[in-house]
């Protein structure tokens, strides 16, 4: 290997390492704090904050002439915070719905940012070059100092989250109860929203203002599917955010001309899609399997009731009946045998071979199967239970309701 190649490799690797570290810290921070935003149904507040940060970035540059990351991040933070206050002011002062307020703030602030950006670009000042990487993010512009900043501020934010964990949880779950307990709601809200602003503006350099909100929402939405504990959700979202950050940043840093933000967002979105489908309890696949099982059980119960009704018409309760009769009663052509077999497995029905003599005499309609089925004594007890309670005893106290169906009365 020639020396220039080695040097290039080392340099390249160093950049990659820097970028990956920054993306990991940032993804973890955004993912963890995003959980609170998603649970408070403020997913789109992040979108407004990140868009509102753009004029702050450009103004910070115009006022200081510096492109140092801390300066720009400070500008972004102030503008993002003003955007949040503007949303509140429009909702309270104008009595307009929140989505309208968010839409106005994100688009008007962003428009102002673009005005400033195009205005700055029109001036003969070479230093402004590269400000527009804040639109979609560019991992390659991240320097070791930036990573130190992200890591430093991120640790403080993480520490605050740990310290005020129980306050944040209570505020998110039941704000009225929190107030009744004497919690200073406004101050806690201020703190939590402030942390969200910090997480968002730190990510702008790498992910960009346009897509940063996705890095806040996606890890939280994915993590929610795997757990029912807030702590696990926050930790998992941090891991997913970090993973998406590193993967996206690495892809973008190795391929030329690929903006980092969209890459990270796509990785995170893929994790969301996978989680929605495959999570063990809340996953859609798991639910499909579960509802198929429930359907089968309902069909088997109905079959049992049919058998029970037949047995009551007959002098001899254990008299077997042909499948065709049961098919006619249930109105189903297919699946009858499966239902009967599942009843048999639970000891509620037994089968005998068909009575060929009756068949031959033509007293029975043409049966598709020779088997005859009869209800057992246990089956009769079960059928009577079903009749009395309407559903029959369920396994365990209050079988879990459908996942994702909160009982919220209007």
């Amino acid at each position, binding site marked *: 290997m020639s020396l220039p190649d080695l040097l290039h490799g080392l340099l390249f690797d160093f950049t990659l390492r820097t970028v990956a570290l920054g993306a990991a810290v940032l993804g973890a921070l955004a993912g963890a704090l995003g959980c609170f935003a*998603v649970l408070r*149904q403020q*997913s*789109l507040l*992040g*979108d407004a904050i990140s868009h509102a940060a753009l004029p702050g970035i450009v103004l910070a540059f115009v006022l200081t002439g510096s492109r140092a990351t801390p300066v720009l991040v400070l500008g972004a933070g102030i503008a993002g915070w003003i955007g949040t206050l503007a949303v509140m*002011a*429009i909702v309270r*002062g*104008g*009595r*307009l*719905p929140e*989505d*309208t307020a*968010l*839409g*106005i703030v*994100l*688009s*008007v*602030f*962003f*428009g*102002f*940012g*673009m*005005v*400033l*950006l*195009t*205005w700055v670009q*029109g001036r003969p000042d070479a230093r402004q070059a590269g400000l*527009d990487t804040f*639109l*979609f993010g560019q991992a390659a512009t991240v320097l070791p100092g930036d990573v130190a900043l992200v890591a430093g501020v991120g640790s403080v934010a993480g520490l605050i989250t740990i310290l005020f964990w129980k306050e944040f949880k209570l505020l998110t779950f039941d704000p009225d109860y929190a107030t009744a307990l004497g919690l200073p709601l406004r101050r806690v809200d201020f703190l939590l929203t402030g942390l969200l602003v910090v997480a968002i503006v730190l990510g702008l350099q790498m992910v960009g203002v*346009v*897509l940063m*909100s*996705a890095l*806040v*929402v*996606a890890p*939280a*939405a994915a993590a*929610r*599917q795997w757990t029912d504990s807030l702590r696990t959700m926050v930790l998992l979202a941090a891991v997913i955010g970090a993973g998406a950050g590193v993967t996206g940043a690495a892809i973008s840093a190795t391929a030329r*001309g*690929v*903006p980092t*933000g*969209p*890459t990270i*967002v*796509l990785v995170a*979105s893929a994790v969301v899609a996978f989680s*929605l489908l495959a999570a063990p309890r809340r996953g*859609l696949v798991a639910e499909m399997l579960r509802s198929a099982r429930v359907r089968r059980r309902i069909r088997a119960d109905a079959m049992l009731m049919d058998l029970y009704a037949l047995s009551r018409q007959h002098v001899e309760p254990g008299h077997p009946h042909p499948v065709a009769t049961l098919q006619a009663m249930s109105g189903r052509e297919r699946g009858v045998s499966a239902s009967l077999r599942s009843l048999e497995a639970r000891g509620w029905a037994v089968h005998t071979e068909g009575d060929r003599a009756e068949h031959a005499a033509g007293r029975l309609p043409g049966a598709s199967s020779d088997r005859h089925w009869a209800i057992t004594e246990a089956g009769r007890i079960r059928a009577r239970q079903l009749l009395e309670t309407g559903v029959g005893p369920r396994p365990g106290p209050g079988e879990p309701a459908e996942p*994702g*169906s909160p009982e919220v009365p209007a």
Partner: protein
Amino acid sequence: MTAMDLEVQIMAVVVAVACALPGCFLVLRRMALLSDAISHSILLGIVLAFFWVRDLASPVLILAAAVTGVVTVALVEALHATRRVKEDAAIALVFPALFSVAVLLIARHAGDVHLDVDAVLLGELAFAPLRRFSWNGVDLGPKTLWVMGAILLLNAAFLGLFYKELKLSTFDRGLSAALGFSPAVVQYAFMSTVSVTAVGAFDAVGSILVVALMIAPPAAARLLTHRLPLLLLLSAVFAAASALLGFQVALWLDASIAGCMAVATGVLFTGALLLAPDRGVLARLVVRRRQRVEFAGLMLSIHLLNHEGTPRAPEENRLGHLPEHLRWSDDFALRVARHAEREGLLTRSGDGRLDLTPLGREAARHLMVR
């Protein structure tokens, strides 16, 4: 002013008004942020259609983009329907993903697609006059003007034809369904027009500023009127004014026209928020100040009525008691009592006792049986 400037200005007004009309219903139906989602995700439709037809001028692009917009809405609703995520999160998950795919496709095939990131975010209103529409060699004006003019007419026609259905399904979904206008059909028809509008405007002002044009003028108008026809009219006026104002500022600053238009909508909205005669912040402050005394006077009448004839009346119904129990300052209590006396609701005795007049009694009773 050059002919080109004039053309740009006319186009800006047409785009703004075309966006504001459906925007009114977006605001009323609380779907403001679906415009954000649609305006982003249509980029994917444009890019995919371009790879297919290889012609940026093809009408197929507009069609594909409009379909993508409707698909976005359907995706958001489907994701929400799984009950695994809330609606706001569903919006925030769907459009960034679709938009990211589009941006990456553009970035990877930068040489093929004559679209760059600036064009996506800002549109190309300044260059729009360069793309002419000519027929038999006769120049008929800029193409964008024709496209947006058509979309404006389409929107006006749609709102005109389905005004009743839209209004009904906006304010009372249940009744609308009961009367046989399926809210879902109305919803998707409406979302289609929003998508088509967003596609047309996308070309001129870019994906994010479409949102400003769709939401801010109707929101400003919303602060000024409760009547739907007036709301539509005012929104159109605000949109046109923002377009003209934005253009002048952009010319002066040499900055993005679309960005300036968005800021102008924000300025007009802020003006309405502060100055609207009924719902404006300032107006409400003034009214609240005046009403406070009036309201307090009525409250005092009710207080007196409640305690009239009870054993505690001599103690409760006196001026000196009010600061303690109603938490009024001495000054305010005196002001309220004087006001109420002037209005003929009560009489004051020298020792601070307050007695209702028949008129005051009547007023208090009337309020309570409300």
